[in-house]
């Protein structure tokens, strides 16, 4: 997997660093140079396991230890790689470790609710989105919220990496995918990067 070379350009990278330090969030469209059609086709053919807790979430998840396709293995391993971690660390200026990687599929009737069981960790929430074309009327937006207000909406998109500093007061939900989304699929790689040292953002 190859990161779009525009994001390794020194000047662009400095801009990205500035954005994440000031805005605490950055979205990188066309993140991979690779054509992702093959990955997407293979994901569509791979069995996912349904995860349903009525008070928390409904979606399907890929059992990463049960992936045998070489393209998918490379795709998954990239997000666990030193190269990817280095890219995130250099951008954020923090020592981090990738603590979780999940590949989830969301289709009609899926959702994630705000829940007391959501971890309140201080971390970077990283999402690589590989979704079909959605409209906002279909649901599927990922919403980050504090107890007081909704602070960020991420609509489903394709080949986009989003990095967000998630303080313990921020939770997220994924809006129910309604009947307008019938037949469409959202694939999201959901990654958590935790701080190694006590170098938390003030």
């Amino acid at each position: 997997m190859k990161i779009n070379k525009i994001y390794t350009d020194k000047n662009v990278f400095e801009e990205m660093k500035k954005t994440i330090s000031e805005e605490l969030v950055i979205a990188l469209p066309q993140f991979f140079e690779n054509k992702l059609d093959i990955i997407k086709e293979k994901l569509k053919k791979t069995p996912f396991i349904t995860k349903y807790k009525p008070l928390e979430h409904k979606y399907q998840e890929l059992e990463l230890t049960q992936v045998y396709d070489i393209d998918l293995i490379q795709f998954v391993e990239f997000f666990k790689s030193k190269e990817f971690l280095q890219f995130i660390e250099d951008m954020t200026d923090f020592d981090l470790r990738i603590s979780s990687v999940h590949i989830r599929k969301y289709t009609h009737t899926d959702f994630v609710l705000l829940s007391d069981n959501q971890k309140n960790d201080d971390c970077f929430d990283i999402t690589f989105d590989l979704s079909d074309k959605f409209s906002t009327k279909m649901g599927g937006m990922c919403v980050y919220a504090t107890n007081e207000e909704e602070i960020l909406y991420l609509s489903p998109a394709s080949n986009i990496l989003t990095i967000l500093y998630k303080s313990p007061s921020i939770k997220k939900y994924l809006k129910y995918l309604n009947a307008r989304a019938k037949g469409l699929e959202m694939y999201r790689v959901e990654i958590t990067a935790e701080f190694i040292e006590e170098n938390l953002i003030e």
Partner: protein
Amino acid sequence: MSSEWINPVFFEKQTLSKLQTEYFNAKPFKYLIIPQFLDSSLFKELNFEISKLEFTPKSSDLFEFKQTKDFKQLTSNTLIKQFHDTFKSKKILSLFSTITNEQYSDIDMHAMKFEYTNYLLCHDDLVEGRKTAFVLYLNEDWKKEDGGTLDLFDAKPEKIVTSIVPIQNTLILFQVSKESFHQVSEILSKKNRKTIGGWLL
């Protein structure tokens, strides 16, 4: 005045006893379906008045639907005020008390409209003061394929145990508890699911 709204059969001792048995034996938690609850001509008039009300869109992680103000605030509409006053009258609250074996002193009441793709995901309704939830269906000609069923979950909750299709002029009562998990499934047709709902307090 109050009894003219309610189908008189529900004041008969035998009927009440049957309703009480059904309520207490219901699974996964105490609930009751009472068909033909209101007098049919008053129901039609009420339904017409409700259709003229303003419904405000409500949206969160849990739901997407439209709702009116609490009927306590809709004092300018004579018929709705009359219905609200009737529903919270001693005679009607005592009818519900007999069925559910709870004592009530007040009600919260509003109307809701679920349009295409609207939903209300699993929750328990548990808020201090709420003893029993009620829903009166206003929509007509409804089929299971239209969605909008009231789904009742097991106590964990893990799965749906029963699904109630919204039939016009049917009243649902269910006990509010830490196990009263329920949802309104997504509306899958262009029909509107309209209800008067709320809680006996």
